[in-house]
């Protein structure tokens, strides 16, 4: 799972004046596709942007466990239950890798989690949509993980070493996520009429939110140029979105499902699909935390963290007592 960088708020950030010589050296290293490692010198804005982007990505993985978890206890076969549990578990693992990558930049996981729970940090808009039937689990794998893969593959070459290494591991593990989703839908479209109707309903609801996952259009994405230069981002939002549409439409055809976009058609001249306008008002509302189940998602995350406080404290207390006894 992935989130494109969402809360760009350069206004209000303190402007750090960087040493021009160090800055030039840094820019040259990044331009040469060299990796930046935790103890290397880096501009403050680079550090800040990375913490924001990596932690948003981590939050998305963790919050992303919830919509699928909603169907885990209702998975209709033991095989599907095991697959879904393994997939959700992978997402937790990916969140964990990413938090650890961000921690190397000097921000603790606790601070990042606090930022999420206080509403300061963002996560992918997609997880603020509800999962209403079992086919949604297929649609999430196929569309949401499909979109995520588009975003994540180029990030394996991102300039920050720990982030790039986390992405390599994540991409390798996620290769089954999209396939299991498509496999689930294949079974349903070849099943009973009710199953096929569920699959179409799921595509109808997830198509547009999936396209929104790539973030605002390039003309409204002011930091893209700098992020591309710093190799924090490797392709623009619109490029990736187009790639996703081109790859996904034939897959929908193969399922015998129709994409809910009357303007969708192949453009011979461009060699790409043309598609309709995304509802950007909805997108920005969801970014602001007004998605259909945003409140449910956040209250569930907060409850998990708060309910676990006594467990974390107890384990620390036991470790301290144990160490004291060993020392005595």
């Amino acid at each position, binding site marked *: 799972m992935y989130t494109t960088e969402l809360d760009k708020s350069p206004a209000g950030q303190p402007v750090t004046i960087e040493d021009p010589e160090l800055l030039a050296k840094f820019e040259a290293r990044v331009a040469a596709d060299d990796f930046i490692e935790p103890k290397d010198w880096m501009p403050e804005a680079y550090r800040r942007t990375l913490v924001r982007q990596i932690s948003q990505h981590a939050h998305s993985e963790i919050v992303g466990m919830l919509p699928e978890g909603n169907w885990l206890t209702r998975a209709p076969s033991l095989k599907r239950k095991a697959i879904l549990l393994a997939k959700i578990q992978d997402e937790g693992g990916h969140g964990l890798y990413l938090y650890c990558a961000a921690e190397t930049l000097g921000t603790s996981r*606790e601070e990042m989690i606090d930022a999420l729970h206080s509403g300061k940090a963002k996560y992918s808009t997609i997880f603020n949509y509800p999962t209403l039937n079992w086919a949604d689990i297929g649609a999430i794998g196929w569309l949401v993980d499909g979109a995520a893969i588009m975003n994540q593959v180029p990030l394996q070459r991102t300039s920050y070493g720990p982030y790039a290494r986390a992405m390599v591991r994540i991409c390798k593990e996620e290769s089954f996520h999209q396939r299991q989703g498509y496999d689930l839908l294949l079974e349903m479209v070849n099943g009973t009429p009710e199953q096929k109707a569920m699959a179409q309903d799921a595509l109808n609801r997830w198509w547009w939110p999936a396209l929104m996952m790539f973030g605002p259009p390039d003309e409204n994405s002011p930091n893209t140029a700098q992020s591309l230069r710093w190799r924090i981002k490797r392709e623009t939002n619109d490029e990736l979105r187009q790639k996703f549409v081109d790859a996904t439409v034939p897959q929908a055809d193969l399922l015998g499902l129709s994409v809910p976009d009357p303007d969708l058609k192949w453009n011979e001249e461009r060699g790409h699909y043309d598609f309709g306008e995304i509802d950007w008002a909805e997108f920005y509302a969801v970014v602001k935390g007004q998605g259909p189940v945003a409140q449910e998602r956040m209250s569930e995350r907060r409850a998990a963290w708060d309910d676990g406080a006594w467990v*974390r404290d107890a*384990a620390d207390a036991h470790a301290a007592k144990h160490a004291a006894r060993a020392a005595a």
Partner: protein
Amino acid sequence: MSDWQLWEVFIRTKGGLDHRHAGSIHAADAEMALRHARDTYTRRMEGVSVWVVRSADIVASDPGEAGELFEPAESKIYRHPTFYQLPEAVNHM
């Protein structure tokens, strides 16, 4: 509310190989760190052995001193076998 301390995880992927850094995890004690390392980094049979070490216990070289630390080795080319041109008959040595 507190989070547990950070540990670095090293995994031997199969017998005969070195342990390699895999990533990090949070845990309150060493036993828990091993369990978390196993559950986080060997879900796909990636390992046969795991080491964990408190991140705070790692001593790292300073990248600012990388020049002094590592560049002097560059000139010691006689440490490499290709430095020595031997007659064809014994060149596999």
